[in-house]
């Protein structure tokens, strides 16, 4: 690994680690209703919102009600966005010359579900489909709301685990509103101004027609890019303003914006481990989860960097060696300003955090480099993961690891001093089986039907197979990045991917919340000599191994048919 890439990776890890504690503490204060510095600004707005939306902030919701509100809110958001998209032709800022792709009912539905589940999978090309009105009033707003709803679920999950013999999960509307006013909105404003300073446009101008010095014409798309750019990262959504997403120079103009956007993605999910530790009264438990995340994150970086820096052996007559004057490596689909280092960091962060805003093209990664990204998503988006969802994914994985350890020593498994009994186990099973039961059958249907295979237009063979598996894995993980050569705008793909997104959002959050609620009703079991301490190094290793084994058991055959086979075809 070259020196500068190594420094970049280390700097990233160190800065995030230093900010976990202060940010985690801040979030704990916000969601416990304690005093914060932003109170003077936010409290009046908060009260006003409750008044006009008939919310009684004092109401505590049990599991069923909390989950119902989460689903109802998602439904309302989806319908509003669908309406805006379908009507964009008669709404302001619609440039008929440029927005030439029609938003058909299937495409609009796919996009509406995609943005209200934080997936932000894009079966359209931003600059020739979406008007500025749709981008701002539709997509940008949903980036905020879906992110905030995810964070609310994460916080309610923590409250459930920390519950003392009662099912007190909090109030969904309060959690959502506070997540918006105290965390996402201020973060987005500050971040967006920084991005504009570095070169991200923020205007409502018509597309510019430039006349080059060689006499050719170039139409340059403009737009309110910065407003969307920051929240797509902060809310772990990832759907770009433009088709090329984080690779587009207007979305990600400099290596510094790249670094900042990655920070915006990772900081909140990482800090939530600390909020978790504080709220369950055992900060060490939070640090253990963070440690496992950091370990898996580091492994991903090392592998992807190695595979991408080696380049493509099938290209001859080229110099792809890393040197003072070039980054070298596999540069197809990558930008010069980021090189291998900046592209690898972004690919690993975005694939791990349910955020699709990659700055290079997944399709053109080396077979094994691309496989690491796929595995990151199959792990269940728990290395930092989506905002709020990453934390409960990691805790659910920890519960499985505890269960395994309990089987090995022949004791009832315990986590945070509570027993994991049959009822809790059912929730864990529902949670763990959802991924293979959705991703694999959908992939199988796609590769064995003409409708599915019609999506493969550019790449075929094992690479095409990987593309289809990647698409469903990404939609289920609510990630949204993909092998973009797959033509996903056909009705077959818009509907099947939307199904994967819905199950990936609600089919995971609801069992997880149910698990937490059951957990909170239990009495504490005093720890004894036989209790496995779930903050120890040994448990960390067990959890890591358990995660890798679970992915391998479900997906190894599929991975062998896709990226592994393609690697063998590459030769050498």
């Amino acid at each position, binding site marked *: 690994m070259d020196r*500068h890439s190594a420094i970049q990776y280390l700097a990233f890890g160190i800065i995030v680690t230093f900010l976990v504690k202060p940010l985690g503490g801040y979030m704990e204060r916000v969601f416990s209703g304690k005093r914060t510095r932003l109170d003077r600004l936010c409290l009046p707005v908060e009260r006003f919102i409750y008044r006009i939306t008939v919310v009684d902030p004092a109401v505590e919701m049990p599991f069923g009600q909390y989950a119902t509100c989460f689903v109802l*809110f998602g439904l309302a958001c989806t319908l509003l966005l669908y309406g805006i998209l379908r009507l964009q032709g008669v709404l302001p800022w619609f440039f008929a010359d440029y927005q030439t792709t029609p938003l058909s009912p299937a495409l609009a539905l796919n996009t509406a579900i995609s943005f209200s589940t934080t997936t932000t999978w894009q079966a359209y090309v931003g600059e020739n489909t979406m008007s500025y009105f749709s981008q701002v009033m539709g997509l940008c707003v949903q980036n905020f709301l879906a992110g905030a709803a995810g964070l609310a679920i994460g916080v309610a999950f923590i409250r459930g685990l920390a519950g003392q013999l009662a099912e007190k999960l909090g109030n969904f509307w309060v959690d959502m509103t506070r997540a918006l006013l105290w965390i996402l909105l201020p973060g987005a404003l500050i971040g*967006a101004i920084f991005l504009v300073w570095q070169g991200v446009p923020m205007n409502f101008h018509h597309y510019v027609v430039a006349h080059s010095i060689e006499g050719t014409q*170039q139409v340059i798309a403009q737009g309110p890019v910065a407003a969307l750019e920051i929240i797509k990262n902060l809310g772990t959504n990832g759907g770009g303003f433009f088709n*090329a997403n984080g690779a587009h*120079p*207007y979305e990600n103009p400099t290596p510094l914006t790249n670094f900042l956007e990655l920070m915006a993605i990772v900081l909140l999910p990482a800090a939530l481990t600390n909020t978790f530790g504080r709220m369950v009264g055992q900060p060490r438990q939070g640090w253990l989860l963070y440690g496992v995340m950091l370990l898996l994150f580091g492994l991903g970086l090392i592998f992807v960097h190695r595979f991408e820096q080696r380049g493509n052996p099938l290209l001859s007559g080229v110099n792809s060696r890393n040197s003072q004057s070039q980054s070298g490596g596999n*540069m*197809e689909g990558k930008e010069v*300003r980021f090189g291998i280092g900046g592209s690898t960091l972004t690919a690993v962060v975005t694939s791990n955090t349910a955020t699709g805003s990659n700055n290079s093209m997944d399709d053109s990664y080396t077979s094994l480099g691309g496989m690491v990204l796929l595995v990151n998503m199959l792990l269940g988006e728990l290395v930092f993961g989506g905002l709020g969802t990453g934390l409960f994914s990691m805790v659910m994985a920890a519960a499985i690891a505890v269960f395994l350890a309990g089987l090995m020593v022949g004791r009832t498994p315990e986590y945070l001093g509570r027993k994991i009994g049959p009822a809790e186990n059912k929730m864990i099973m529902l949670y763990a089986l959802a991924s293979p039961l959705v991703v694999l059958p959908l992939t199988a249907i796609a590769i064995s039907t003409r409708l599915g295979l019609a999506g493969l237009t550019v790449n075929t063979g094992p690479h095409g197979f990987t593309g289809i598996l990647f698409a469903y894995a990404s939609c289920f993980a609510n990630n949204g990045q993909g092998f973009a050569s797959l033509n996903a705008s056909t009705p077959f793909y818009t509907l099947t991917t939307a199904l994967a997104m819905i199950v990936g959002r609600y089919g995971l959050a609801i069992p997880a919340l149910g698990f937490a609620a059951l957990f909170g009703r239990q009495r504490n079991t005093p720890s004894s000599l036989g209790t496995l301490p779930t903050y120890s190094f040994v448990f960390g290793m067990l959890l890591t191994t358990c995660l890798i084994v679970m992915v391998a058991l479900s997906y190894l055959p599929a991975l062998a048919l896709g990226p592994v086979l393609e690697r063998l075809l590459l030769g050498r």
Partner: protein
Amino acid sequence: MKKNLLTAILMTLATTILLGIIYPLVLTGIAQVLFPRQANGQLIQKNGKVVGSAIIGQAFAGPGYFHSRPSAAGNGYDAANSNGSQFGPTNHQLIDRVKADVAALQVENPGVPVPIDLVTASGSGLDPHISPAAAAFQVPRIARERGTGWEQLQGLVAKHTEGRQLGFLGEPRVNVLELNLELDEKFPLKK
């Protein structure tokens, strides 16, 4: 349930006003006052006409100009259709395209391996940069076309080479449009 449904609808509308109208308006105001050049896309004007954006790549075909990387955006550097090639590593279209480009480029510098970024398409198809290695590779051709010495051109390339940000972020890079604009000023093409 009924009350929560009502709240869900009202909440969606209220937050849409806050986040879809107030937030972007405030942001546009701040951006246009503090950083008008960046907020409006860093357009470059020459003789009162827009020739391009400083951070959006353009295609250059003439042998007297530094060339950008191959582009898969529309028909090449279409800034209203950003895209990468999406070719997988074993895709024959990729291998054949690189082979053809390498053969054409090696006519200029026989036997010298071509810097990889000069024959690979970027992710956006709008990469405004090439690596310093790719710029150096093109110096002999430009020098011949414009009748200048290598050293003067190398100096110009060095002037337009941006280093890593904060010393460790990103890669050294050369802005092709800005370089070509100054090239026309300093060493005009012989008619």
